[in-house]
């Protein structure tokens, strides 16, 4: 009798396993203009669900342990924690003032929240999200990058055409330096030597020797040079040019553009598949996500999403360096 029951249970389990579809990964897209997230089935490249998440979600990132995906709702003053694989909302953390862009320092000690609208940068304890310091930092602080030693957080100041370095030990602004027009995306090269800064008001990336506080090169990319993501090979980095409607591939060793990929509709944030074959790009003005075949440089799919799609994430992404 027992053996029959065991057999039936095993058969049921086998049948239910066979009947259930293979679990596909989701891509999460923030529709900043309508306060929702689009969950896209990554295999079929179709939006499966659109759910309200909060007001003005712009940027997102995984926790350092990859257990959660954090969505920063700027106008809701909160962070929403999702399951990074399924997109399920796990919890909401209130009292985070105007989080526009967010970042963890490499040593995980600091969670930095950049308040673009209110000219503030907030430093939170990376372990428990308790506010340690609120720094006024005009004008229009935009994006954040860190050095490998987690000594500094570097912030672009979009409307005063500067970058600022915050000393994380003293939690004070250590220095500022002028750069080009409307700096937005900021990226530390893997050798920790240079900061790359996207000039959204111009058509180039400015290379900063941050230790010497000196601009050393301008890499011409395209109008509206905006945001970065690594190609995962430790050498190349991708940059979206929001007005030129292109993505530039930059070699971080030679500091040259090595390729240019057309992407329509105001390319903004990007995510690259782990195998490096497909680049997913939010097309800000087109209410779409463009999927690019990196071998042919062609858009293979345009996935309709919500209004003003901004941040994008999936778990099986290329390495961040």
């Amino acid at each position: 009798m027992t053996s029959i029951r065991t057999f039936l249970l095993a058969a049921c389990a086998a049948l239910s396993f066979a009947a259930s579809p293979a679990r596909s990964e989701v891509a999460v897209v923030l529709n900043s203009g309508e306060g929702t997230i689009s969950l896209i089935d990554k295999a079929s490249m179709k939006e499966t669900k659109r759910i309200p998440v909060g007001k003005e979600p712009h940027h997102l990132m995984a926790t350092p342990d990859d257990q959660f995906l954090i969505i920063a709702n700027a106008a809701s003053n909160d962070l929403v924690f999702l399951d990074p694989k399924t997109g399920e909302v796990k919890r909401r953390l209130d009292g985070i003032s105007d989080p526009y862009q967010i970042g963890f320092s490499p040593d995980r000690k600091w969670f930095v929240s950049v308040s673009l609208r209110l000219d503030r940068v907030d430093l939170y304890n990376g372990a428990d999200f308790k506010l340690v310091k609120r720094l006024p930092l005009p004008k229009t602080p935009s994006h954040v990058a860190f050095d490998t030693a987690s000594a500094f957080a570097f912030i672009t100041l979009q409307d005063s055409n500067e970058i600022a370095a915050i000393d994380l030990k003293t939690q004070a602004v250590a220095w500022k330096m002028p750069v080009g027009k409307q700096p937005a995306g900021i990226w530390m090269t893997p050798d920790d030597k240079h900061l790359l800064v996207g000039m959204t008001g111009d058509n180039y990336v400015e290379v900063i020797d941050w230790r010497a506080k000196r601009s050393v090169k301008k890499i011409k990319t395209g109008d509206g040079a905006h945001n970065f993501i690594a190609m995962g090979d430790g050498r190349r980095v991708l940059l979206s040019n929001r007005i030129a409607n292109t993505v530039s591939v930059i070699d971080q060793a030679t500091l040259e553009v090595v390729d240019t990929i057309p992407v329509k509709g105001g390319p903004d944030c990007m995510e690259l598949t782990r195998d490096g074959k497909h680049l997913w790009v939010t097309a800000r003005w087109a209410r779409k996500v463009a999927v690019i075949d990196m071998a042919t440089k062609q858009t293979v799919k345009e996935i309709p999403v919500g209004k003003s799609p901004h941040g994008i994430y999936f778990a099986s992404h290329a390495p961040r360096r």
Partner: protein
Amino acid sequence: METITTWFALAHQWLFESAVQPVMFALGFASWTEPAFNATEIFLIGAIEITLLALILGSLERWKPVERWANDAIARRDVRIDVIYTFLNRLGVVPLLIFFLLLPLIDGLDGWLRMQGFIPPKLEDALPWLNAHPLVSFATYLVILDFVGYWLHRWQHRFEWWWALHALHHSQRHMTFWSDDRNHLLDDFIVDATFAVVALVIGVPPGQFVLLLLAGRVVESLSHANIRTGFGWAEAWLVSPRFHRVHHAIGLGHEGAARGCNFAVLFPVWDRVFGTANFDVVYPPTGIRDQDAGRNYGDGFWSQQWLGVRRLWHSVASGTPSRP
């Protein structure tokens, strides 16, 4: 519906990328592209809205008017001026101007509050369920702002200096659906600034604030229309052309203990609660009593604005705080 949304999105993108973004970039305003993208949407919505209003409400006004002035040159001139106000407002020129004047003030105040450790609360703090139901949240903010709108409107009639500006809106003797936006620019600024502060205090996100202001516009146009109709039983819940016409009526709309009646912008419930409702089924002539005695409120856009400033100056100089 999906097809309409898709076509609208395409038109929005095309207009922005081909006309707005290149100008912004060339002028050095690349960091303002997101507000410009939203402003382009407001412009497009306004253009579609004006076209539909002209077609639908214009037809209804011709079919069932309260007053007929087809051959009256003065009436046609008066309506033409209101058309200018409508274009300036609905296509976003006036809202944009006010937005840029208010933005540093509101963000400055909000930023200062954050430095004091105060994050303005929001409805969702008290009712977390609303986080997953943004439409309910939006409707709740709409009701709250309509309540505030009711009281602002009462004060526009109560305080002498404010009435000096607001009287322009009531001086239209040939009221049509175009008349909703006939306001003194200073009056617009004061009302929008007050709304913006209230929106900050109750936690309306900046992006949604504009949408909330837009949400009631169609009803407000309809309520000014020269159409002989009420809403029957529904009039108790939504402002109708008849209900609002009484608010604009000579001798009824701006006089008496409350300095008028039917102040509600969208929902007459506030007039019922505060005792200012008038549900009489009448269609009286519109305007202000002193116009019969020869007072001139201006024959063109600029003269109306200038005379409004003069009235404001006289009311402040005379030191009369509220209307006798």
